[in-house]
């Protein structure tokens, strides 16, 4: 009996010892430092164009507040904020943003800056869309009567760019539901992955200029339509409503918004350039 009992204790003791050792190993990892931060839900275009990497260090230096950016499509970013998982939303889909504020999830919407969309396509431009008229360009893609039919890649992810694309089709008088065929590729992906797909298929695609300028894997694609005022893409910023989500860091969040709209913030946006080309144009109204 004695030996049995002691060997049982011994076995469990060994296992326990192993567990303790493992726990110690886990506990020995450096703990996350408590830092002052806000969470900003934003879009892939601002993150992947490199704007935040340029902007945030300046703000963090000035305020001592770290900004943690979660980059998603505009639709997803707004949903995240609706659930209270962000303090500030910084996106580009005016209609969706106004709805967000009207529903009481956002305090107030401020316009910060704009950039523009560009229609990108194969260098040899089989549908002959090149020019300065986005609607005419889209009409030509939809009605291209050539074989093989040049494909068009859509984000298809409810992002700001996707919503803009749908608006342009509508304005161009193209009924997508009817016109859609094998040529219209709904990829359900972010701007970068969609550009990768377009480069691989030599397809047409609507992209924001910032992501395009920062994009490396261009293949045989180039900008075909640009400079149409309808292609302007307005960015707005909103504080998530503390009345709906009491944990929202309203003071620090508001500081970030105020800074973006301030002369210093606006100048910092102007100063961001890739190869000498300015990406975002500040237009805060105050």
């Amino acid at each position, binding site marked *: 009996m004695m030996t049995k009992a002691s060997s049982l204790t011994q076995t*469990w003791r060994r*296992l326990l010892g192993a567990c303790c050792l*493992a726990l110690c*190993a886990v506990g020995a990892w450096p703990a*996350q430092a408590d830092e002052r931060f806000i969470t900003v839900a934003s879009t892939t275009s601002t993150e992947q164009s490199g704007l935040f990497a340029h902007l945030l260090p300046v703000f963090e230096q000035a305020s001592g507040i770290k900004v943690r950016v*979660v980059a998603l499509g505009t639709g997803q970013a707004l949903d995240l904020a609706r659930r*209270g*998982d962000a303090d500030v939303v910084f996106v580009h889909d005016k209609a969706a943003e106004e709805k967000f504020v009207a529903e009481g999830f956002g305090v107030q919407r401020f316009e910060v800056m704009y950039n523009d969309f560009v229609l990108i396509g194969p260098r040899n431009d089989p549908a002959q869309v090149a020019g300065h008229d986005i609607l005419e360009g889209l009409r030509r893609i939809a009605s291209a009567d050539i074989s093989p039919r040049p494909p068009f890649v859509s984000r298809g992810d409810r992002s700001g760019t996707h919503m803009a694309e749908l608006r342009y089709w509508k304005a161009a008088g193209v009924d997508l539901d009817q016109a859609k065929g094998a040529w219209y590729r709904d990829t359900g992906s972010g701007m970068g992955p969609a550009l990768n797909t377009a480069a691989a298929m030599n397809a047409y695609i609507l992209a924001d200029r910032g992501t395009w300028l920062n994009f490396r894997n261009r293949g045989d694609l180039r900008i075909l339509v640009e400079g149409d005022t309808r292609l302007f893409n307005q960015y707005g910023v909103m504080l998530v409503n503390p009345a709906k989500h009491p944990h929202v860091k309203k003071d620090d969040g508001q500081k970030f918004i105020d800074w973006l709209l301030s002369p210093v913030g606006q100048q910092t946006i102007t100063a961001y350039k890739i190869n000498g080309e300015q990406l975002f144009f500040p237009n805060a109204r105050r």
Partner: protein
Amino acid sequence: MTELDSGFTLARQLLLAGDARLWNIVLLSLRVSLTATVLACLIGMPLGALLAVGRFPGRRVLVVLFNAMMGLPPVVVGLLVYLLLSRAGPLGAFGLLFTPTAMILAQMVLITPIVAALTRQVIADAWQEMHELLHSLGASRLRAAATLLWDTRFSLSTAALAGFGRAIAEVGAVMIVGGNIDGVTRVMTTTIALETSKGDLPLALTLGLILIVLVLAINGVIFAVRGWSERRWG
């Protein structure tokens, strides 16, 4: 092939230059996945052992369930953990979303079934061999489970490695619950996804190579430690 070549060159340059951001990303990957593996082992191994030697109603169902859950899609686990940790979710008050803790939790949920299922198989085999002996010693099932866990500890390292491999390689779950925040929750796999998005394929490939080398190194170390301790204590 030129892309692969340039990938290797770039990998060497980045690592030798001691790029601080890269090292932080590597360390965070290791920290998250190793912690998740340890926790998954603490839960999954005793669970697997009990499933192997225990006799209780619903045991077979549980065995099939755990075997099936080895195929859990990471993105689904990520979504579930996200809904759990979101401010609007049941654990929202803790504010764990978009932290390494959330990533550890998601990976733990993902790999605990793997560790449990593989442990159950190892222990079931050992149980078949030893149960007469253990019975004759008058060992209870609980005690038999503990004894077998200790006796098969070297074989069980494979279960732990399988779990770790899955954890460090997945991107779907950590992307959702971590948010891929620069300097806070950005790990190897989410960085690779991000660089691929930017069309910087050489850098993405380079990071992929570093990840593979890392996993190889860890497997090598475990293999060596296992061989050494088997000779020493086996």
